[in-house]
C-alpha cells in the first residue's frame, strides 16, 4: 500500500533536490510514496502558545487529508515532521481542543494517524541491514562506493526535540544518521555540534547571529575531519550552506564544506542517476568533493 507523502513547501522549490533524491531512493528500495494532492503548508513552526489553535488548523488539515488515505503519513522535511507530529500529539492529548479545531475546519479527526519521518521507515521497516545489502549489490554493479568519505551527520533540532513527543531517537545522543551512514558505506564523523541549532528562522531577523551559529556547526564538523555534512532539514541546509563564501572571507583558514541531504548520499550509494537532484541549488557545490571520491 502506498504511503501518503507530504513534501512541504520548500521541497517544491529550494530543496527540490531533497524531494527528487528522496523519491528516487524510496522507489529504488521498493517503498511507494504517494504525494498528497493540493496539500497546504504545515506552518513551519509548531505553535507554542497554548491558545494558538488557529495556527494548528493548517497542519490539522494535512493530517485529515492523509487519514482519508492511510493510517500514516511520511515526511522528508524535518520541520514538517516536527510540526505535523507535534500537532498530532497535541490533538491526541487534548480532546476538548481537538473538538474545537475539528469544528472550525469542519472535520472529524480523531488523532489516529502516525506521522513518520522517512528515516524511521528506513530504520524500522526496511532495516539498515537490508539497506546495506542493497548498497553492496549496487556497488558490485557500478563499482562505485562511498568508502573513505567522512560525513558529518547533522541532526539540528527539529528531528529530535522534544523527544517526549517525537520519539525518533535519543535527543542528546542519537544514532539513526550514524547507523544509516554506516549502512551506505561511508564513515560517520563524530562532532560536538551535531544536535546544536543552526540558527533556524533567526535567518530572517538576525541573519548575522544565524550565520555565527551555523559557522560553529561547520567548524565543529571540519575540525573533526568531515568532507561534507548531511542533514534532513531544508532550513539547516540553507543556513549552513549559503553563507560559506562570506565565512571564508571573514575567517582565514575556513574551508567550504558541502551540505547534502542524506537522501542524495543514499542515492549515490545505490548507484542511482543523480542528474536532477538539484546540485545547482547548492551554494557550495558538492560535486567536486564527490568526484574526488569517484562518485
Amino acid at each position: 500500500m502506498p504511503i501518503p507523502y507530504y513534501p512541504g513547501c520548500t521541497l517544491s522549490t529550494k530543496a527540490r533536490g531533497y524531494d527528487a533524491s528522496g523519491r528516487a531512493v524510496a522507489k529504488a528500495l521498493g517503498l511507494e510514496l504517494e504525494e498528497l494532492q493540493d496539500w497546504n503548508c504545515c506552518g513551519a513552526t509548531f505553535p507554542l502558545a497554548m491558545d494558538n489553535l488557529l495556527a494548528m488548523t493548517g497542519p490539522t488539515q494535512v493530517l485529515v487529508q492523509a487519514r482519508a488515505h492511510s493510517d500514516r503519513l511520511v515526511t522528508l522535511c524535518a520541520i514538517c515532521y516536527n510540526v505535523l507530529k507535534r500537532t498530532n500529539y497535541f490533538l491526541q492529548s487534548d480532546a476538548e481542543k481537538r473538538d474545537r479545531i475539528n469544528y472550525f475546519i469542519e472535520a472529524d479527526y480523531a488523532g489516529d494517524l502516525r506521522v513518520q519521518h522517512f528515516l524511521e521507515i528506513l530504520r524500522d521497516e526496511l532495516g539498515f541491514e537490508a539497506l546495506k545489502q542493497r548498497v553492496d549489490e549496487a556497488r558490485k554493479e557500478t563499482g562505485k562506493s562511498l568508502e573513505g568519505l567522512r560525513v558529518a551527520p547533522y541532526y539540528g533540532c527539529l528531528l529530535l526535540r522534544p523527544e517526549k513527543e517525537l520519539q525518533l531517537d535519543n535527543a542528546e545522543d542519537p544514532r539513526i544518521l550514524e547507523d544509516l551512514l554506516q549502512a551506505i558505506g561511508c564513515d560517520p564523523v563524530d562532532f560536538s555540534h551535531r544536535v546544536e541549532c543552526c540558527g533556524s528562522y533567526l535567518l530572517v531577523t538576525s541573519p548575522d547571529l544565524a550565520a555565527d551559529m551555523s559557522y560553529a556547526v561547520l567548524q565543529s564538523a571540519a575540525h573533526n575531519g568531515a568532507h561534507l555534512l548531511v542533514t534532513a532539514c531544508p532550513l539547516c541546509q540553507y543556513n549552513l550552506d549559503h553563507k560559506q563564501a562570506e565565512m571564508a572571507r571573514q575567517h582565514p583558514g575556513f574551508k567550504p564544506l558541502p551540505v547534502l541531504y542524506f537522501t542524495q548520499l543514499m542515492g549515490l550509494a545505490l548507484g542511482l542517476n543523480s542528474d536532477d537532484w538539484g546540485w545547482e541549488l547548492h551554494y557550495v557545490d558538492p560535486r567536486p568533493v564527490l568526484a574526488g571520491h569517484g562518485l
Partner: protein
Amino acid sequence: MSEELVPVFIMGKRYDVPPSLTIMKAMEYAGYQLIRGVGCRGGFCGACGTVYRLRDDDTLYFCLACQTVVQPHMYLVQIPFFPAQRAEYDLSKLVPRPEQLFSLYPELLRCLGCGTCTKACPQDLDVKGYMAAAMRGDIARVADMSFDCIMCGLCAARCPVGEAQYNIAILCRRLYGRYLAPRSQHLEDRLAEIKAGKFDKPLEELKSLGVEELKERYKARDIEPR
C-alpha cells in the same frame, strides 16, 4: 403587487420587500440608489459582495447581491470594496517562478491555512487551496484553481492575517497567461495571416457598409457551435 412582502434588514434597518427579488433589487426597492456595490448585475464583475446572517442561525453567509434572492429575516450588508495589498509590477519584466510570488507578496507566507477565505468565497472557490498552491510556488495550479475569481474581495475581508488572496491569484493568472500557458499554434498562424494582409480586403469592405447592412450581416453571422 400580489405576493406577500418579507422582512429583510439592510445595515440594521428593516424593510419589507417582495420575496422574489434579488438582494440588489430588494435594496433598490427599499429606496437605495446604488452607485458603488453594483456593476454588471450578472454575477461576473464582483462589485456586489454581500455578507448576511439568518435569524436563529450562527453561520455567516457570503454571496453576490445580484445573484441571490432575499430570504425572510436576512440581515445583510454589502462590502463593495475591501482594501488589500496590491503589488505594482510590469508583467513583461517578471519571471514565472515561485520566488517572484514571494518577493512581490512576502505576506503570502503569513497564510495560516485556516480556510476562513474558502468559507467566504461566493464563487465557491477553494481559496485556501490556491493560497496553499501559491505558497508551494505552483503558479499554474493557482491560475487553474482561481480561474473563476471575480475579485470581490470577501476572502481578504475575512482573512485573520490580512492576506490579499485575490491579488495574488490574478498575478498568478497573469504569469500563467503570459509565460506558462502553451502557445496556441492557430493563433500564431492567424496573426501571421493578418500581418500578411489576408483580411485587408474584407475589412475595407465592411468599413464601407452602412449601419443597416452591418446589422443584417451581424444577424446572419456564423456562431461557433457550443
